């Protein structure tokens, strides 16, 4: 029993911060990821006890009861008390794990409020993309970003003050978010199923065509968090990467304004071109598909990491 405890302590020590990605899942970006990590470690501790115990008894019985001269096998056919005992024992372990999970569930499932010095979300139209099933912070306010999985990129749509989603700021691949702010995600897919996953910001949430899925994160320090699509979506599934870049709230405000100007300029240019096309004879060069696309969609967002 002593050696069991020692092994347990050893594993728990190993399972400290340094071992993330070896013995424990990645965490450290958002409270829900940290809570999952804690829950994982509790299960790991129980698992190590069960593993060492069962393998130990198995090994002992193999060594102790190996065939030897004069050894007579005991003709035992069973023991009802023992059967009931280990059935109950296994049940108790599982009940404990279930209770711990339920106790920790709200912290993982439900988003908290943003910090007071976070990005102000009270003026943003929260009705955008709203779903009755989307978990919301107690205050009801969060920066809700629409995440759309498409082969082979993620498209992010940022909310603004009006209800028109067509004029919203958007980006691909890199999601820029403010720190100290609760960010809720509405996850959807437009072609095949994908799965949103940034390991340090919590678990996976599948993007399934025809359905909305929800998660959240809240990042305290500026940083970059990488992930990739986790549901097979085709030949380039591997290259469907995602990156979350967290910047200070005021920097985020500037980034958003910049982005808006870019998009407005692109829209204006496109309108101008369409007007020119309608007026004069069509110019073959201007009619290529490449020229019709807006510049904002062409260039990946460039922000300092």
């Amino acid at each position, binding site marked *: 029993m002593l050696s069991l405890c020692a092994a347990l302590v050893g594993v728990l020590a190993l399972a400290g911060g340094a071992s993330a990605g070896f013995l424990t899942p990645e965490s450290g970006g958002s409270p829900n990821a940290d809570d*999952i990590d804690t829950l994982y470690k509790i299960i790991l501790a129980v698992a190590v006890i069960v593993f060492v115990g069962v393998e130990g008894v*198995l090994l002992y019985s193999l060594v102790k009861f190996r065939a030897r001269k004069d050894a007579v096998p005991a003709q035992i056919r069973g023991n009802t008390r023992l059967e009931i005992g280990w059935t109950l024992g296994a049940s108790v372990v599982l009940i404990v794990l279930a209770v711990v999970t339920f106790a920790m569930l709200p912290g993982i499932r439900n988003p908290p409020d943003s910090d007071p010095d976070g990005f102000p979300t009270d003026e943003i139209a929260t009705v955008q993309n709203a779903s009755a*099933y989307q978990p919301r912070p107690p205050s009801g306010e969060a920066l809700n970003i629409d995440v759309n999985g498409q082969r082979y990129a993620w498209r992010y749509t940022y909310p603004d003050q009006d209800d028109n989603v067509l004029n919203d700021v958007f980006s691909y691949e890199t999601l820029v978010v403010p720190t100290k702010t609760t960010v809720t995600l509405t996850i959807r897919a437009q072609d*095949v199923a994908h799965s949103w996953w940034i390991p340090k910001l919590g678990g996976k949430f599948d993007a399934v*065509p025809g359905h909305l899925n929800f998660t959240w994160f809240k990042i305290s320090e500026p940083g970059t968090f990488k992930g990739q699509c986790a549901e097979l979506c085709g*030949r380039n*599934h591997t290259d469907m990467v995602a990156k979350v870049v967290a910047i200070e709230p005021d920097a985020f405000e500037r980034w958003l304004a910049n982005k808006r100007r870019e998009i407005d300029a692109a829209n204006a240019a496109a309108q101008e071109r369409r007007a020119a096309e309608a007026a004069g004879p069509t110019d073959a060069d201007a009619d290529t598909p490449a020229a019709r696309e807006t510049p904002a969609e062409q260039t990946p967002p460039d922000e300092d990491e």
Partner: protein
Amino acid sequence: MATANPALVPEITVHSVEPEPRGWVSWITTTDHKRIGILYLVTTFVFFLLGGVEALLMRVQLGAPDNTFLTPATYNALFTLHGTTMIFLFVVPIMAGFGNYFLPLMIGARDMAFPKLNALSYWLLLSGGIVFYVSLFFSPPEAGWTSYAPLSGSVYSPGSGIDAWIFLIHLTGISSLIGAINFYATIANMRAPGMGWGRLPLFVWSLLVYAILLILALPVIAGAVTLLLTDRHFGTGFFDQGQGGDPLLWQHLFWFFGHPEVYIMILPGFGMISEILPVFARKPIFGYKAIAAATVVIAFLALLVWAHHMFSTPSATIVLVFFMVSSFLIAIPTGVKIFNWIATLWRGTVEFKTPLIFSVGFISVFLIGGITGIFLAVFPVDWQLTDTYFVVAHLHYVLVGGSVFAIFAGIYYWYPKITGRMLSESLGKWSFGLMYVGINVTFLIQHSIGLDGMPRRVYEYPDVGNLALYNLISTIGSFMLGLGVVVTAWNVVRSLKKGARSGPDPWKANTLEWFLPSPPPANNFDVIPRVRSVEPMKDIRRQIARQSETPVELGAAEPTPR
């Protein structure tokens, strides 16, 4: 039905025996359950080797970061072929192979209930395998063994590979379904006199439950792939959200079949372990009724846990909670089995023959797969682990460490009965050693690969963190595992001619198949012994010993003049 007088050994033949038909035509036209069993075992083992080669190709690709050995299309085709082959063409049908050969022998029957249906089962299985593998020459499927819609729909998978996959599911499904009905009918109606349900060998119990699960689960997948087929070719849109269908419907239907399938693949393995351990511990199985009951309970719960494969899909919390609790529940009867197996070894005299070593290896490695299953059942933790290499590690601990070790234990245990020859013990132990180390080197580190953030089904990964090292370790392990399999394959071929003659009962085992000569004659039993306990061969040996004592004593009293 005649009752055997066990004293009459060797058996008396009461009629003239026709010579066994020979030549390849006799194998194609055979309805003998033993020959069909051999066809099953050999065919599925060939598919096992094919699936293994596919796995090794993938491991070569992943042996180094940013590797360009395989294209993404080839890689996707390989994991689709590998998963589909191992599940539908190896593990499930090889259990049917063992069942075909040994079920009638173990219950004292002369053949299966429906011998012609039995032959049809095999030929449908082979057709399914051929239809599937022919797609290699056209466009192999690339949507994984789960073929999730809409990726498997005609828009995103226009090639015929998915259709080949659908026909494989249909052909092997019908094969398994009629096989399962045959098993059920045979067990229900053709047991030896005296063999009540409480004296059914545990392997037969597991086959009974295997058959019931197949009968319950297969119609669901048959329906699902039919809907997929009409979606692909007739524009029905059952899985297309744009036409009132739902991609999640596919996932629910698939896993409603898919999770029972997991137990379909492992329960007969449990049954083999329950037969082999008592023979080599020279001790009755501990808790016969508990093990049989646990088998039934596992099968029932197996039908109630499917959505734990879908924890990351849009789901209400109550759904997540239900499937977490039901998955927890299934751990209890599984644990009960493991405890009973260890208790069977306890205070026995354990003989370390290859079948026992594989069985003990099974327990020690399957336990790891069981424990990681608990991690995955806790849905918030599953959100981090699902669709990563952690899941790959978990399912291979259960399927390779579990099913494959049980199958190898079964091969070493029953090969003497099938061929009349013993397998080489030293090659067997080498094979076990390589496979045991290979499994753990390959798959233990894959837990860390997943925890480090690498999803499954990716053809390459960047050189960040320790991913390159972890993957290299895993690749090295996979070749050790492959070598271990090859050693047993060589052992099986070599021992056909060179193995020591086994005689009818080399292990002094407990069940009726050992009553017969090795290999057993056509129609098995001339006279069927009456079964008086769960270990009929012990009774028979005891009776023979008692009766053979008499002449010895007589001889001592009146020595024959010489």
